[in-house]
């Protein structure tokens, strides 16, 4: 993370201060702009420390059916990069917001080629950073520079198979936090939480940057276990998107779905806090 660690503690660093950050994800505009506003705000009320806002892209890669369908619903409701930025401006939450999307949308935005315009606009509306699943660290030079120019963070996803040079490359270019993928495969809520998580956390033990673990966390007990394994935060997407999908399919009132999301958020945040309490004294090398 280079020089950024010496900067003043920013909003993202603050979000991870208690080492039990709860980081939810929702696809923006799923199933509509207005409902989506309510849902994101519900997550903030439920204790989110940082929120990953998904800007839907028509050709996502290696996403499970849950997120896929959320993306399809959001696109059908007319979500675009411009609407996404308006959404961020309309949101009334006071936690840091990170944009999760594909490089295609970042690259093509604005009059000139390259990531510059997108990052500038993101900084304007108050976003704090980006997660870009299809952008490998070795291709991330231009986006990293733009992020530095506008003071935003760039998060990378570390997979159980990420090792060697690629891990080094990520370490050089990452800032904000690392997204640790708990197991191989596409995103989606699972009943088991893999022990690949511990392996991944071990490999990153020397990194002085918060480590948030995602993929497969669906309840408080999972959150507790992941947190107790040494994660600084937990990332939850599919389990929350499921609640939105269910509400949509069963025509539930918006308030009811929002309440369910808030309750789920509380359960996950409490789980993460409980897990941290179980942690032995930290051993920082």
């Amino acid at each position, binding site marked *: 993370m280079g020089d950024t660690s010496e900067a003043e503690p920013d909003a993202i660093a603050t979000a991870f201060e208690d080492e039990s950050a709860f980081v939810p994800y929702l696809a923006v505009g799923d199933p509509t702009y207005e409902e989506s506003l309510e849902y994101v705000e519900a997550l903030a009320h439920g204790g989110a420390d940082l929120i990953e806002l998904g800007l839907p892209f028509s050709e996502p890669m290696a996403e499970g059916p849950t997120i896929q369908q959320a993306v399809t619903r959001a696109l059908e409701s007319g979500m675009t990069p411009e609407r996404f930025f308006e959404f961020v401006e309309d949101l009334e939450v006071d936690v840091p917001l990170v944009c999760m999307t594909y490089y295609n949308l970042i*690259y093509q935005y604005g009059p000139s080629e390259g990531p510059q315009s997108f990052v500038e606009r993101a900084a304007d509306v108050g976003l704090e950073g980006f997660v870009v*699943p299809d*952008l490998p660290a070795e291709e991330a030079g231009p986006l990293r520079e733009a992020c530095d120019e506008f003071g935003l963070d760039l998060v990378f996803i570390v*997979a159980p*198979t990420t090792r060697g040079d690629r891990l080094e490359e990520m370490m050089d270019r990452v800032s904000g936090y690392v997204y640790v*993928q708990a197991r*191989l495969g596409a995103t989606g809520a699972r009943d088991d939480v893999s022990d690949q998580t511990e392996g991944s956390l071990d490999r990153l033990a020397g990194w002085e940057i918060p480590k948030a673990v995602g993929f497969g966390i669906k309840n408080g007990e999972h959150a507790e276990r992941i947190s107790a394994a040494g994660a600084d935060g937990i990332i939850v997407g599919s389990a929350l998107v499921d609640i939105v999908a269910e509400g949509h399919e069963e025509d539930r009132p918006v308030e009811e779905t929002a309440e369910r999301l808030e309750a789920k958020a509380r359960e996950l945040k409490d789980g993460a806090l409980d897990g941290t309490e179980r942690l032995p004294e930290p051993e920082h090398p």
Partner: protein
Amino acid sequence: MSHGNFEGYGGRHVPDPLQEPLEQLATAYDEIGTSDEFQADLRDLLEEFAGRPTPLYYAGNLSERYGAEIYLKREDLLHGGAHKINNALGQALLAKRAGRDRLIAETGAGQHGTATAMVGALLGLETEIYMGKKDVQRQEMNVFRMRLMGAEVNEVTRGGEGLADAVDAALEDFAENVEDTHYLVGSVVGPDPFPRMVRDFQSVIGTEAREQFLDRTGELPDAAVACVGGGSNAIGLFHAFRDDDDVAFYGAEGGGEGSDSSRHAAPLSSGKDDVIHGMKTRVIDEDVDVHSVSAGLDYPGVGPEHAMFRAVGRCEYSGVTDDAALAAFRELSETEGIIPALESSHGLARAIQLAEETDHERILVNLSGRGDKDMETAAEKFDL
């Protein structure tokens, strides 16, 4: 470090879980795929199983009509009826040597899925094909062919239920089963190493054609012409001629209702730089509906090496409309007794244009596939 860099196009734009398997594949290809032993075995299979070499055919009747010598590289005569088998054999043999026992592939019209099912049966590899539900309904015959050869055909019901959704489902499978599975990509698209590996497996087309052309005429062609969807048959033809500066390259894209209309599949002649399906390349504008009368050209992006050829001016790309392709389809059938695939008809239409409008004297066209699969479209359009 940047992978598979074609003057800034290409690369490996994929989520991190896919990085390691792609790296392994690249290593396997560089170490095993280029070895003499592997190449010899592949050559045997290409000859005995697939039917290589394919003839270079002088289309006398067509040539007489347009006043230029038109030669066809007959990839339509290969087993399966298209150039797809060159690549499928190469990748499947590589997968087997690298210790994989399972193949997966996406397919749109079913041609690539069929080629994958053929090599899966041949080499005793478990084969699973992802195909959008819409395509399953449209291309029933190919579904039957795949199943008959023992492949499992997986109907994809997410998203638009088309090719892009099949790609996504296949990628998801690949990410979960990287240990034993090879994802057999069907064209020179996607993340590195696919664009260069598929090009190498298809380059047999141009290598043969170049030698045959020299044997027959004592000279090289003035122009090499091929249709471009993902672009594997075109790269396959062009590769052997890349340093022959006097051989002009022409790529015929799916022009749909016209490259300046809102319905086409011509990212090279009308599109912009972008990142899609793991590569940086040219992609059609977002307000354009991806469309071509031929399923094989119906793709929003294109192989990164074509994006490079366009940028450096090595190849001239233009859209051939549905109507022009259909006319060439009919014309070759009537004049030469050869029914070309609708995809290949785009290249043929461009060649006819060149014969009429330029002073190219010897034109080589890649007849990448046969038209049997397009009979329903033809019957409807021509009221047969």
